[in-house]
Structure formats: C-alpha cells, structure tokens
C-alpha cells in the first residue's frame, strides 16, 4: 500500500486560528459600587435551614447564614473586597472576552446575557492588591458565570497573572469556583488546563509562592489543573471538591456515594488539602502565610 505518512506534516501555520482572546469593549458599563449577584430584596432565605436573613446582615456576615453557618456563594468582586486591603486592588484584563473559537451554536447570545447579568466579561477577576500590606497577585473565579467554567479567557487571564507574578516576583492566590471546563469552547478549554499549569510550573520554578483556596464547587478540569497545584491548598468548609461530579460517579458505578464524599473535610482526610479555613478567618490566615513567605521576593532578587 502506498500511503503518504505525512498527510499533513508539521505546523499548518497558515491554518492556525487566532485563539488568544481579544480585548473589546464591554457590553455595558457597571456603575461604580454596583456589584453583581448581591441578593435582591430586604430578606434572603437560607437554602439550607430556611431562615430568613436580612440581606444587609448577610453581606456584613461574609455571606454566611447566622443560623446554620451555610455559606452563600460569593461573587468574585465581593471576594476581592473581603480579602484585599481597601483601595489597593488594581484589576487586570477586565475586558478580555472570548472569541468563541468553535463558533458554537447560541454561545454568543448566552455569553452576552451572562455578561449583562453578572457585569463581568468572563468568569474570573484577576489583579494585584495587598493583604495586610503585602503585595499579591489574585485571581478569583466567578461561580455565577457559566458555573465558573474555564474557557480561553480564564486560561489566558490566569496565565498572564502568573507571568506577571514571575516578572514582579510576587506570590499568587487563586480562589477556585468551577464546574470544570467551558463546554462551548471544547478542545480550547481543555488546552487551558495545560497552559495555566505550565505558567504555574514556571512560577514555582522561580521559587515563588502559590496558594489556592478551593470554594464550592471546584470540579473537573480546574481541579485537574491549577486548583491542585498550590504550594499550599486551603478550602472553605463543606465545599464540593473533586475531579468527576458526584452525579457522574454515581451513574458510572451505580451505587450510592458515602456521606460527605468529595467535601472539603473528605479531601483533608485523604491528604489533598492543607487546611480548612472558615470564611471569616480567610484573610487573617492568608495574611499570616504571606508574612511567613515575605522574604521570597527580595531574597531571590538578592541572589541575582
């Protein structure tokens, strides 16, 4: 049989699509101070115990039910406010949006609706700020944006964040909240796992600190890449953390899953989380860890 082994050999450069997301104008401007996802109305009902909470108190109380301790999902910007010293946050790549690399049916219109609903261009906020006066690069995933799924924008923004952190010799903290890879961007989403992990590896090779904080839920391709690559891995109590979702596992093995399976406490017990930190203690804990690593940037600089 006479077959040409090189039906297509090497890089088909001319055929490579531009896949790097481009900056364009945001769909609309969010007025100063108006944050997405703040529960509407005076009262909010706790989904766990049914208690009616004053919405104002909920925000003050780190989005935690005062009755049963349930953690409400928290928007990316609220998280930034909770963690970063007032007035020190400088956001990066705020307007980066996806090019819809597959041209996936109805993705574009769904994106626009989600952008308007959340006030975000995509599912992550990144930037530089201070925690207890210590400079840090921060990434916070937005659970309300396509369920925190990772596509090209999240991959690109995180990669830039790590590269910038290497350039400035700064630690990185990433808050994960994700249902996994962004299905509508297909293979491009999968490849973001490799891309971000590569940037994490470079950052680590430079001797710099990376902390992940796993929040509810952290699953799929995010768990199988940068979520599990922290030098230090923290988790909020009771968060669902895993590779496969519980429903998929149940379907695969056809048996009931044990109580507490894939929750933060389960991961701690199995050795995949360093520490479970209640939401109200997160800033303090992160501040202390950062302080104990504060010599890294300057020391390594001195060696050069």
């Amino acid at each position, binding site marked *: *049989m006479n*077959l040409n*082994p*090189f*039906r*297509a*050999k*090497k*890089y*088909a*450069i001319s*055929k*490579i*699509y531009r*896949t*790097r997301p481009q900056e364009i104008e945001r769909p609309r401007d969010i007025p100063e101070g108006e944050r997405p996802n703040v529960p509407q109305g005076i009262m909010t009902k706790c989904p766990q115990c049914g208690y009616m909470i004053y919405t104002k108190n909920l925000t003050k109380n780190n989005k935690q039910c005062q009755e049963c301790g349930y953690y409400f999902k928290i928007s990316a910007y609220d998280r930034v406010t909770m963690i970063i010293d007032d007035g020190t946050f400088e956001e990066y790549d705020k307007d980066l949006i996806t090019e819809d*690399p*597959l041209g*996936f*049916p109805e993705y574009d219109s769904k994106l626009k609706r989600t952008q308007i609903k959340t006030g975000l261009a995509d599912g992550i906020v990144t930037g530089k700020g201070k925690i207890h006066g210590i400079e840090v690069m921060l990434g916070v995933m937005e659970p309300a944006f396509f369920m925190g799924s990772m596509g*090209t924008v999240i991959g690109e923004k995180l990669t830039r964040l790590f590269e910038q952190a290497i350039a400035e010799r700064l630690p990185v903290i990433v808050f994960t909240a994700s249902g996994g*890879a962004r*299905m*509508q961007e*297909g*293979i*491009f989403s*999968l*490849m973001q*796992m*490799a*891309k971000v*992990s*590569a*940037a994490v*590896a*470079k950052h*680590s*090779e430079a001797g710099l600190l990376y902390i992940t904080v796993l929040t509810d839920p952290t699953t799929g*391709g995010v*768990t*199988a*890449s*940068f*979520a*599990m*690559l922290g030098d230090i891995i923290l988790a909020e109590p009771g968060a669902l953390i*895993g*590779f*496969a979702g519980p429903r*998929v*596992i149940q379907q*695969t*093995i056809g048996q009931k*899953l*044990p109580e507490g*399976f894939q929750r933060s406490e389960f991961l701690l017990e*199995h*050795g*995949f989380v360093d520490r479970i930190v209640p939401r109200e203690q997160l800033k303090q804990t992160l501040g202390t860890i950062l302080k104990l690593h504060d010599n890294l940037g300057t020391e390594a600089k001195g060696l050069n």
Partner: protein
Amino acid sequence: MEITAWEKVKLARMSVRPTGLDYINQILDNFIEFHGDRYYGDDHAIVGGIASFGGVPVTVIAQQKGRNTKENIVRNFSMPHPEGYRKALRLMKQAEKFHRPIICFIDTPGAFCGIGAEERGQGEAIASNLAEMILLRTPILTVVISEGGSGGALALGVADRVYMLEHAIYAILSPEGFASILYKDASKAEQAAEDMKLTAQDLLNFGIIDGIVAEPQGGAHNDPQQVAENIKIILENDLKELLELPVDQLLRQRYQKFRKI
C-alpha cells in the same frame, strides 16, 4: 468519501483498532514493561517501560484498551486511576534522569470516575502531570491513536509534538456526555460530535496538533503495520530534530506551544 465526525467517533472506538501495545511492539524493539507508581498500586489501563527506538533508548507510555470484554475488564476500558498517571510520571522522571526521550500513546475515553479515583486524588494526579511534563528536560512525543478523552488524555499530552491518527478524536468530553450536559439529551451525541470539532482535521486546523498520521481506507485496523510504519517515520524525524535542540530551547518551545492556545 467524506467521513463525518460521528463516524470517526465510532471508528476510533472500534475494538479491532490497533492498541498502544500493538504500536509499541511494531515500532519499538526490546520493550521491557515496568509496573507500579511506588505509592499505591499498578494501573493496567496504562502500560509503560523502556525500549529501543531505532537504536535510541526511549521511555514509552501508552493507555491500553482491551480487545474483548475480558481484556477490557483488566484494562478498565483504558480509563486510568490516579496510580496510572503517577506511574506515567514516575517513568517520565526516570526518562529525564537517564536522558531518554519519551513517547506517549493516548487512547482513553477519559480518566476513571469512581470513589477510589477521587479518594486517591484523580485531579491532583492529572494536574501534577501537566505541571511536571512542561518542565521535563527531555523530548516528549505524543500520538493520539484512537480516543483522546478529556483531562485523562491531556495528562499524557503535554508534549513537544502531538500527532493524531487520521480517524482519532480528541475532545473535552465524550459526545454523549457533552450532549447530555449541553443539549440535555444524550441521544444527540451525533450532533454534539459535529459541534465539538473533535476530529484530527479540526485540531490541525486549530493549530492544536502538529500533524495527522494517515490511515488506510476504512481505518487503521485494515493495515496496522502500515500505520505503525507511518508513525515511526514521523517520530524518527521529530526525534532527530528535537535531540539536536539545546534543552532550554526545547523547553521554551514546549511552553510556547501551549501558551499560544
């Protein structure tokens, strides 16, 4: 005749298709299989070891499907557990130590979803491979021979060159899973296969893979030897090229390869 994406999915899953071990035996000499991850156990869904590739010692790792139900039970339908990925990483680190290039054959529906897999850190195992492979100071060549399913495939896919067989697929999820999530209907898998753009031809157009290995009419099983020969020629060329590069340049190129996506 044009083959649809769904037909390729079915082709890629055919039980008569040559497996990882078939290619190892055809392309490499003196293959010696090594077992175990040194932490927990030995995963039969991934085989690995050392061999000679045209006189060059290499480390080879392959996801291994079975030919029949009995074999597939042993191989867990080529769905690795964390210990499989950790075995692969252990062997890759060994390859780095002894300056051996690494050849990987991808063929998996995906990493296994189960209680034990979660208890032993499936996510952590895959993540570690992604982060470690990017820094390995030896050339890595990967061929997706049939099914490249999700993170479970990518965990052997962070390579200097990635090829796909002409009728192989490489995707974020199975078309069935994709359809049930996005179309709320698993029976729309055929439509999903089209929309997902998971064929070798799609991925080459996207610049995600480096080339396509030709298959005979009807698929690789019609002439496995010829396909093995095709793979061999491509890998030999690449290896020669990559072994001449200074390692730092090799690593820069590998980083850029994924950075640009």
